[in-house]
């Protein structure tokens, strides 16, 4: 086993990472740092460069420019791989082997002593509810069970840093919850987790900090709450009336930036929700309308994401 360098609070350091696929610039001078024990979200739409970045960090592909390190070891080196656990996007376990054999294979490839691997493997399979089926071939597993197994395979070496690329994509609610709970408990034990996702709620619920990546560029890095609150002009008021009101009329009310129709409701975006509520009350009383419901909404991470990626597109 390799020793882990101490007295360092940086788990992942990325400087000017750049990757081309032919003419396409997939990752464009990306830099960020992930602290030890941090649950870091890498958020972006499909094709933003998330998976390419993870693949460079996990040593599957090499960068064209820039550098990356995992616990001070150069990304892609055997030492960096040794301290990391990986759940690649859309990865499969070996379908012709049992869950147990898949786990023991991984343990052997990480040089974990057999007795430790057996103990850890049994405990992980218990946690993920797979232990009773441990000797069944993986080809008989459901999608959720396979993903849980992949996660166990990433954890059997007890890695300091865990990379997960869209781990909950396409899974049912229960499977997603099990994975989220596990990630939170691992993080509570001090593991560093690098999670890529395009699911805003997931990033919002799990991550200490989130980097938003779009078209190969990082457009923002901050705590999810700070990202939401920093999105000026994205507060909104959701209102429904007992009668039909045209969106054009609502757009003319002072303070309204944009109007969006959502079923029988309207969402009115504004920089100042307090003033808008007063204006709406005045409008409805002067036009003989009754307000059925009215909610003031703070911007969601999704709003922040859309605003930030659109700003990026305008710059481009």
């Amino acid at each position: 086993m390799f020793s882990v360098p101490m007295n360092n609070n940086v788990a992942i350091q990325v400087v000017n990472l750049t990757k081309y696929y032919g003419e396409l610039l997939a990752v464009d001078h990306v830099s960020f740092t992930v602290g030890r024990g941090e649950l870091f979200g890498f958020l972006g739409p499909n094709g933003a460069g998330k998976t390419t970045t993870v693949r460079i960090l996990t040593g599957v592909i090499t960068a064209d420019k820039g550098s990356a390190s995992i616990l001070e070891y150069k990304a892609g080196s055997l030492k960096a791989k040794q301290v990391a656990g990986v759940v690649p996007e859309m990865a499969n376990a070996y379908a012709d082997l049992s869950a147990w054999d898949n786990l023991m294979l991984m343990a052997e490839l990480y040089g974990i002593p057999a007795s430790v691997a057996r103990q850890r493997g049994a405990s992980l399979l218990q946690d993920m509810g797979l232990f009773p089926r441990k000797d069944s071939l993986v080809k008989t597993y459901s999608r959720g069970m396979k993903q849980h197994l992949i996660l166990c395979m990433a954890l059997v070496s007890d890695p300091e840093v865990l990379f997960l690329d869209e781990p909950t994509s396409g899974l049912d609610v229960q499977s997603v919850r099990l994975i989220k709970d596990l990630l939170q408990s691992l993080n509570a034990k001090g593991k560093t987790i690098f999670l890529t996702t395009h699911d805003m709620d997931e990033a919002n619920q799990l991550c200490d900090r989130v980097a938003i990546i779009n078209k190969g560029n990082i457009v923002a890095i901050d705590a999810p709450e700070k990202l939401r609150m920093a999105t000026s002009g994205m507060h909104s008021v959701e209102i429904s009336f007992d009668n039909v009101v045209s969106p054009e009329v609502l757009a003319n009310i002072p303070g309204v930036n944009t109007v969006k129709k959502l079923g029988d409701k309207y969402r009115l975006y504004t920089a100042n929700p307090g003033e808008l509520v007063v204006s709406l009350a005045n409008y409805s009383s002067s036009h003989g309308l009754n307000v059925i419901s009215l909610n003031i909404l703070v911007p969601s991470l999704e709003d922040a994401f859309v605003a930030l990626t659109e700003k990026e597109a305008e710059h481009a």
Partner: protein
Amino acid sequence: MPETALVREQMRRSLVIARKDIRIYYSKGPVIIFGVLFPVFLFLSFTIGRDLSVDFMIPGLLGMILFFTATSISPIVVPWEAQARTLERLMSCPVRIETIIVGDILASFAFGVGISLITIILGLFLGVTISNSVVFALALILAAFCFASLGTVFSIPPTNMPSTVNMIAAVVKFPVVFISGVFIPLDQLPAWGQAVAYISPLTYFTDIARTSIQGQGHLPIVVDLLVLLAFTALFLVVAMKLHQRTMPRRI
């Protein structure tokens, strides 16, 4: 970690990969069909009805069986794993690309040696005797390793379709069998035929088998062994260098 300890550790992990390949790929359809059934039927179709001695047939059959079996697994593992989406996980483990390739070679090598032993036992039952059995065993091991290494050269193009790799392999393997003294001894070939035969690694193993079983070959055994060794080194270097480039492109 000192380099020798690192190499030992990577070798151990190659063996782990080989064991995984053995458990998964030995029973795969294309391996059984192209690796075992095909050479047997090909050989039968060329020998049945001809008045040939067992001493003549067994070295040829052995050469062909070893060549087909030892090249049946190593070409398909990497594309198969890329297609099954297990390759990325394997590449993110603390193993070098060379470690993965050597693991695949070892699995193919063991398959080649195992099936060839069945042929040898069959030959012994039919009254064949092997002179110089130690040298012959050494040649069998070296040739199996050489052919298994050649198999990984076939899978260098970064396609994720095992059938495409098998097609590339077949285009090379069939002509090789016909120019390697399997059906016609080298001494009976014209000069140009012998010149062509010298570019096939199978020629040298078949020649050792003929020397050991029939009592006479075309080249001295030492020359055969040295050329096999040179081919092995060439295939290994080419496979390792080029897989470094193409394996990441499969992901």
